[in-house]
């Protein structure tokens, strides 16, 4: 007798111009952010300044490598995590960005996820325009 059931659905999300530009960039292995009226470069980009709600649409390309702001080592990944082996979550401020992007970091041990360390994007072999086109970060 079943003791569990699964709620499963393939949502199809329309992404709009700004998230769309970011995802289009990923498909082309480039990272696109957005500059707010106050001059802050948001990566990943939002259609708005998170602090004020004012629109943001000035797209700018930033680097695909950057600096770890914070990292947290995951010894036992969940089924739903990006990597199926131990990894670190890392908030990474890419070169040219003022905010940090969250993704997995394949760095072998907790020591590799120290703040200040430089990392770069490891692209998935086939990119489709999805945040998972970034397979993970790796030490630069």
């Amino acid at each position, binding site marked *: *007798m*079943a*003791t*569990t*059931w*699964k*709620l*499963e*659905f*393939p*949502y*199809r*999300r*329309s*992404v709009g111009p700004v998230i*769309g*530009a970011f*995802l*289009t960039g990923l*498909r082309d292995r480039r990272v696109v952010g957005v500059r707010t009226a106050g001059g802050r470069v948001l990566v990943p980009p939002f259609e708005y300044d998170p602090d004020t709600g004012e629109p943001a649409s000035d797209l700018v390309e930033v680097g695909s490598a950057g600096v770890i702001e914070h990292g947290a080592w995951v010894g036992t990944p969940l089924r739903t995590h990006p990597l199926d082996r131990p990894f670190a979550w890392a908030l990474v401020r890419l070169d040219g960005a003022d905010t940090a992007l969250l993704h997995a970091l394949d760095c072998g041990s907790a020591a590799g996820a120290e703040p200040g360390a430089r990392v770069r994007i490891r692209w998935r072999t086939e990119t489709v*325009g*999805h*945040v998972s086109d970034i397979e993970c970060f790796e030490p630069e």
Partner: protein
Amino acid sequence: MTDPVQFMSHHTAVEYSLPEPSRLGVHFAVQLGRGKIIGHRCPQCAKVYVPPRGYCPLCVVETTDADEVSIADRGTITTFSVITPLQYPGQQETEDYVQATLLLDGSDTTLMVTGLEGIAIADVRTGLRVEAVWAPDGERGAAAVGVRGMGLGDAVKGWRPTGEPDLPREQLAEHVL
């Protein structure tokens, strides 16, 4: 140059445990396995609930084994709809069918039932008298009962007309639900 990305897929899957059957749910299912339908009569307002829920939502009091009553396996259709199944992931129904609201004799609550037998869809009507078509003894899958606590599980395969005269609509006005 390819088109900008306009959509992304977000495949979601999350797992839940099915609620354990409650003691009352198990008891109800065991009785169904024996071909018996039971309900609870509220000690305050005397309304009979089938299946029993362990409380009366009108009086907001709990009900117990002492409030148990036996219910007939026949009753009256109080309203109905002919359903053309909508298609969505998980839907297994494909053919038109009747979904009827059934008031069992002795119960104050109705059941949503399907599986009307021996009657054409076009002949289904408010006031129609029907009786249970029980699954054979031993196949009354008690385990399927009680997850949502609103039906008779697969203990009853369907419902067929008894041949009794229809009940007048006026007597059913309070049992549209």
